[in-house]
C-alpha cells in the first residue's frame, strides 16, 4: 500500500469500517440456491459420488452378509474334526525315548470330554518287504503290494465315520485281547479278491493270518485307509511295536461347535503330565475363515469403489470449476456488494461439500437397499456394519470438500473489475 510521504500509518487505530459479515445461515441459503438453480446439473455432478459411496456400502454389506452365510454352511460339515499330532515322536530319541506318546487308554480319556462323539489313535504301520495277500505263502511281487497296513483303536475307526459294506467293525473286545482281526477297505478287498465275509476269509500279513470281520465302502476322514488293512492298535503294537516312520495321530469326531474347545482340551486329557508332546489341530476357525473370505472378495470391489470415488471427485471439481467460470459475473457482483474473498471461497466450498454429502446420502441409501434386496432374494440374513454404513455419507462430503478446494480458491482470486466488465 502506497502512502504519501511525511505520513506514517499508526500502529493501532480504531476500525474505520466494520468488516463485511456473512452469517452461517445466509451462507447455507446462498449455497443451496446455487445448487438448486441447476438441478439437473447438480444431479449429474453427484452421480460419481453416488456410485462410489453406493458401491462402497454395497460391497462391504454384501461381503459381510455373504461371509456370514459362508461361515454357517462351512461349520455344518467341516467343523467337527480335530486331529492331535504326536510332536514328541518327531523329536530326537534322547528327548523322548519312546516314539509313541499316546496312553493306552486314549479312547476312554477322549470319550470323557464333553462334545466328543468318537475318538481314538491310529497310525500307519510301516513294514518293509511286507507281503499282504489273501492266501498264505504268496510271492512278494503281488498286485496287492500297494495295499497299506493301518493300526487303529476302535474309537479311531469309529471317528473315521466309515460306511460298513458288510460285516462289522472290530471293537474294544478285539483290541483288549489283541485279536488277529482286521477291517478291509472296499478297494483293498477287491484287490485281494475278497468279496464276502460270511465264509470268514483271512488276510495274511507276512504269513500271519488276520480274520476279516468287516469291509468298509467309504469313510468321512482318512480316505487312505480304504486302500488298506486296518488292524486293532494293540495287535499292531504287539506284533510290530510302536509306529516308526509315521507317528501316531489321534482322530476326534466332535459335536457341532465343540471342535475349538476339544482341540484345547485334548492334549491335556491325553497327557496331563506332558501335554506339550501332543499338538491339536482344530478345523479352521469360522471367524478367521470368514475374515479371510471377506478380505479376498472385498479387496477387488473396494478398489472399484475407490475408483468411483475418484471419478466422483473429478466430476465435482470439474463442474464446480465450470460453475465458477460461468458465474464470474455473479462473483464480481458479490465482491462489489461487499463480499470478501473468503465469503466467495466458503460459498463455493459449501456448494461442493453439500453436493458431495447429498451424493453420499443417496449412495448410502442405494447401497443399503442393494444389500437388503440381495439378502431377501437369497433368503439370507442381511448384515450391515454400522461402523461402515454411518460414516459413508461423510466420505461423500469429504470428497466434495476436497474437490471444491481448487475451484473455490480460484473463484476468490477473480478480480471484481474484470468480472463486472463482462
Amino acid at each position: 500500500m502506497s502512502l504519501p510521504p511525511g505520513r506514517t500509518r499508526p500502529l493501532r487505530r480504531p476500525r474505520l469500517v466494520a468488516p463485511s459479515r456473512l452469517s452461517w445461515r445466509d451462507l447455507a441459503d446462498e449455497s443451496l440456491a446455487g445448487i438448486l438453480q441447476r438441478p439437473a446439473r447438480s444431479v449429474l455432478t453427484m452421480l460419481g459420488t453416488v456410485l462410489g459411496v453406493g458401491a462402497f456400502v454395497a460391497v462391504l454389506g454384501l461381503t459381510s452378509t455373504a461371509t456370514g452365510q459362508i461361515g454357517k454352511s462351512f461349520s455344518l460339515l467341516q467343523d467337527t474334526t480335530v486331529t492331535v499330532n504326536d510332536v514328541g515322536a518327531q523329536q530326537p530319541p534322547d528327548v523322548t525315548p519312546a516314539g509313541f506318546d499316546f496312553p493306552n487308554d486314549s479312547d476312554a480319556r477322549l470319550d470323557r470330554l464333553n462334545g466328543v462323539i468318537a475318538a481314538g489313535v491310529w497310525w500307519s504301520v510301516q513294514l518293509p518287504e511286507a507281503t499282504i495277500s489273501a492266501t498264505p505263502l504268496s510271492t512278494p511281487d503281488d498286485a496287492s503290494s500297494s495295499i497299506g497296513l493301518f493300526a487303529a483303536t476302535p474309537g479311531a475307526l469309529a471317528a473315521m465315520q466309515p460306511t460298513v459294506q458288510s460285516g462289522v467293525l472290530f471293537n474294544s473286545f478285539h483290541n483288549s485281547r489283541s485279536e488277529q482281526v482286521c477291517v478291509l477297505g472296499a478297494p483293498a478287498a477287491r484287490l485281494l479278491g475278497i468279496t464276502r465275509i460270511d465264509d470268514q476269509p483271512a488276510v495274511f500279513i507276512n504269513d500271519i493270518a488276520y480274520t476279516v470281520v468287516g469291509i468298509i465302502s467309504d469313510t468321512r476322514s482318512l480316505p487312505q485307509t480304504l486302500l488298506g488293512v486296518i488292524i486293532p492298535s494293540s495287535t499292531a503294537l504287539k506284533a510290530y511295536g510302536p509306529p516308526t516312520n509315521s507317528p501316531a495321530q489321534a482322530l476326534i469326531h466332535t459335536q457341532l461347535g465343540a471342535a475349538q474347545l476339544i482341540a484345547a482340551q485334548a492334549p491335556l486329557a491325553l497327557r496331563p503330565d506332558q501335554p506339550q508332546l501332543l499338538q491339536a489341530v482344530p478345523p479352521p476357525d469360522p471367524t478367521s475363515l470368514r475374515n479371510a473370505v471377506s478380505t479376498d472378495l472385498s479387496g477387488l470391489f473396494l478398489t472399484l469403489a475407490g475408483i468411483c470415488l475418484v471419478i466422483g471427485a473429478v466430476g465435482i471439481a470439474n463442474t464446480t470449476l465450470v460453475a465458477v467460470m460461468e458465474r464470474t459475473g455473479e462473483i464480481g457482483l458479490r465482491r462489489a456488494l461487499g463480499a470478501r474473498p473468503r465469503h466467495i471461497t466458503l460459498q463455493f466450498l459449501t456448494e461442493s461439500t453439500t453436493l458431495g454429502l447429498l451424493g453420499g446420502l443417496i449412495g448410502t441409501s442405494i447401497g443399503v437397499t442393494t444389500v437388503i434386496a440381495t439378502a431377501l432374494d437369497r433368503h439370507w440374513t442381511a448384515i450391515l456394519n454400522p461402523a461402515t454404513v454411518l460414516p459413508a455419507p461423510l466420505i461423500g462430503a469429504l470428497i466434495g470438500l476436497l474437490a471444491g478446494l481448487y475451484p473455490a480458491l480460484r473463484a476468490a482470486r477473480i478480480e471484481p473489475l474484470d468480472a463486472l466488465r463482462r
Partner: protein
Amino acid sequence: MTPPRTVVAAPVAALHQVSKSYPGPPDVHALHPVDLTVEPGDYLAVSGPSGSGKSTLLNLLGLLDRPSSGTFHLSGIDVATLTEAERTALRGHRIGFVFQSFHLLAYRTALENVALGQLYVSTSRRARRTAAHEALRRVGLGHRVHALPTTLSGGERQRVAIARALVNSPELLLCDEPTGNLDSTTAASVMDLIEELHTTGVTVIVITHDPLIAARADRHVSIFDGHLDELPLHAVRETV
C-alpha cells in the same frame, strides 16, 4: 479520532493528484494525475470514448482498484489507510453500483436480487426483505417483487439493479453505462428514475460515452487519453 461520518461537510469523493499506471514495459498511464471533488448531492457525468480512462476512474471511485499515486478520500476517509477487508466493507456500505449488463442473478426473484445488496452488510433477514421491498417500490416495481429477471423487460431489469444499489442507502450511486443495453425510450425513463433519486439527495456519478446522457447531469467532466477536464455547465448545454 473523530468518527469520519460525523464530518458533515466532507465531500463524498475527493481525488487529489490521483493517477493510475500499469507497470511493465512500456508503462501504461491509464490515468494522469487528476483532481476531482464530488460534493454530497452532486450529479456528475463522466464521458469519453472507449479506452480514454473512464473505466479506470470508475474502478478507483468504486474502490475496485487502488491508485498508483495521489490521495483519495471517500466521505472523509483516506482509503489508502484501509486494509483490504475494510475497503471491501466500505464498498459494500457506502457505494451503490449500477452496471451496463445489470448483473442480476437469473434464478432469483427481483426481491431476492435486491436483498442480495445487503447480504454482506446486514445479518437480519427480515430487515433485508423489508428494505428490498421498500427499494423496489421506490423504483416503481412494487408490483413485480416476485418476478424472475427473465420475465422482466430491459428497463425493469435495470430498475431492479438500481433498487439493489439503493437498498443500502449508499452515499454514492456509481452508474457504469446504465443505459448501454437499453433502447432510447427505456434509457430516458431509467435516466428519469436516476434523476428523481438525485433530487431526493442521492449523490450520483454516471459514466457514459453517450453525450446525450452526459448532458443531463449537473456537472460534466470529459476524459480523453487519461486527462480529465471539467466542462463548464453552459458549454455542455451548448454542445447538445
